[in-house]
């Protein structure tokens, strides 16, 4: 199950790197010069990784999750992708590149196109371009299916991971609850892939920390790297994760290097092309210092614009109910969440735009980005509180078994 979801996530990463490498080499994309290298890389990954497919015990709650996903798929594909950020940012770049079968550096460098955020990483637009290559031309009619696929990939992974640590009924309930954040309401945007890469990556790293699972460490590092290839928040997440790793299990920090290696090419290329970044306009530090005294007002804005406030309140209650020992055990995920939110808050203070507008238009999206791992660990902590006889060390037996990824 998890292998299916991971297969999709890695496939999108492979497509991104093949198209990116061809574009940097000055070679225009076609179906064959993208598909063949991608297939070779995918086969190599399968041979090396030897994924296997285990059967899970399903419950009635899984049916509810399937119904939610099915109705979500109906919504996401009801029409051409309609979101403003799709046709002004993610879909726009994909369509522009699709016209010339490569990355249009002139478009990205033009001062008139800074509204399209030329500095944003390109994993999602390049995957849309692959869909256009396969489909024989640009069409935005069914691109909402990508959003659904990323969500399903994450839910499959959560289901498998939870099943390894608790009973099938609780695992399926956690997976259903995860739909609150995994099924992003922002169709066609890079939120869904970021939620999937970041969510799966953080949960893999958690496994690596709790069970000394080096296979999970490699997956976690690669997925976090792909999150950084998806959105700038993913790049910030690398810093966050590194700090959280250092505070949770220091000797694992250096094993996180693949994440930085995957993020580096785009960071270097965008510097070489001098692609403008919003936050770099004027003095970021001056704006932060100027707004810092108004942090209270900014916090109220964040609370007012919180997406799914009921779920957040319940998660907070869950954190308070769980025994202290469990919170200490899960400190990696909790630290990642707190640090990432802190980065968002500082970014808001330093935005060159109106802070009210910036918060209203982005905070509901940002809060979902690293919420799934938090939700999963809070529910696992509650499950352990309910059944303390299932001690953490019992999981070692599961962890030592051959995992499904």
């Amino acid at each position: 199950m998890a292998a299916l979801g991971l297969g999709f996530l890695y496939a999108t990463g492979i497509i991104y790197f093949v198209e990116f490498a061809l574009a940097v080499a000055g070679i225009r994309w076609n179906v064959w010069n993208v598909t063949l290298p991608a297939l070779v890389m995918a086969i190599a990954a399968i041979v090396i990784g030897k994924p296997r497919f285990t059967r899970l015990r399903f419950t009635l709650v899984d049916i509810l999750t399937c119904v939610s996903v099915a109705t979500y798929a109906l919504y996401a594909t009801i029409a051409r992708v309609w979101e403003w950020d799709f046709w002004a940012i993610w879909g726009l770049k994909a369509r522009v590149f699709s016209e010339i079968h490569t990355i249009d550096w002139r478009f990205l460098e033009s001062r008139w196109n800074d509204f399209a955020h030329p500095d944003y990483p390109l994993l999602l637009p390049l995957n849309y371009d692959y869909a256009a290559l396969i489909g024989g031309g640009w069409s935005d009619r069914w691109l909402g299916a990508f959003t659904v696929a990323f969500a399903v990939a994450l839910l499959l992974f959560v289901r498998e991971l939870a099943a390894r640590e608790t009973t099938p009924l609780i695992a399926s309930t956690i997976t259903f609850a995860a739909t609150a954040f995994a099924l992003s309401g922002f169709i066609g945007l890079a939120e869904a892939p970021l939620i999937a890469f970041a969510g799966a990556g953080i949960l893999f790293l958690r496994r690596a920390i709790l069970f000394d699972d080096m296979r999970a460490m490699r997956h976690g590092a690669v997925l976090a790297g792909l999150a950084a290839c998806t959105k700038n928040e993913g790049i910030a997440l690398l810093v966050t994760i590194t700090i959280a790793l250092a505070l949770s299990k220091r000797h694992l920090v250096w094993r996180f290097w693949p994440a930085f290696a995957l993020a580096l090419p785009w960071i270097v290329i965008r510097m070489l092309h001098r692609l403008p970044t919003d936050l770099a306009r004027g003095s970021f530090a001056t704006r932060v210092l100027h707004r810092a005294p108004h942090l209270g007002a900014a916090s109220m804005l964040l609370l007012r614009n919180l997406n799914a406030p009921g779920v957040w309140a319940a998660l907070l209650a869950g954190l308070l109910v769980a025994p202290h020992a469990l919170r200490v055990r899960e400190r990696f995920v909790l630290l990642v969440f707190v640090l990432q939110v802190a980065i968002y808050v500082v970014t808001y203070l330093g935005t060159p735009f109106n802070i009210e507008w910036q918060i209203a238009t982005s905070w509901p999206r940002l809060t979902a980005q690293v919420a799934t791992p938090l939700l999963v660990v809070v529910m696992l902590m509650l499950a352990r509180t309910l059944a303390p006889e299932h001690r953490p060390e019992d999981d070692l037996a599961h962890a030592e078994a051959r995992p499904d990824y």
Partner: protein
Amino acid sequence: MHGDTTDTVMRRRIAFVVFVVIALLAIDPSLFRIALANRAAMHAAMTHYPDRGWDAYPAFLEQVRARTKPGESVALVIPAMRWDGGYSYAYYRASYFLAGREVLPLVDRDDVPQPGNFARAKYVAAWRRDVQPPMRVVWSGDGGTLLER
């Protein structure tokens, strides 16, 4: 439950309630309403959603796209020549529909006119605005005119 203190039992009960509440809050009624909704009507509504108030604009841009070639430059004229008064929407939307062409704005974010872009553009796409010659009318319809220098 032998040996459990009252606090532990209470903690377990609260944990159970919170666990169930989190799961219940994940139910999104809007998704289930969508499943029961009239799909054709929803399709029509969402198709027009990005252009509400500008209904004929996408059709106009499609016609401009059909009459211009990749790499050619198009300047955009609309009734509201103020960035936050509609020009930014018109410009972003034109950039999407005319992908491959160089779409040039005639005002910037600060509403400063950009006559250089007007002079540089091979075409002018005028939506619900009259543009004075000397320019050749390439096509007219769907609420606008495409002019060539």
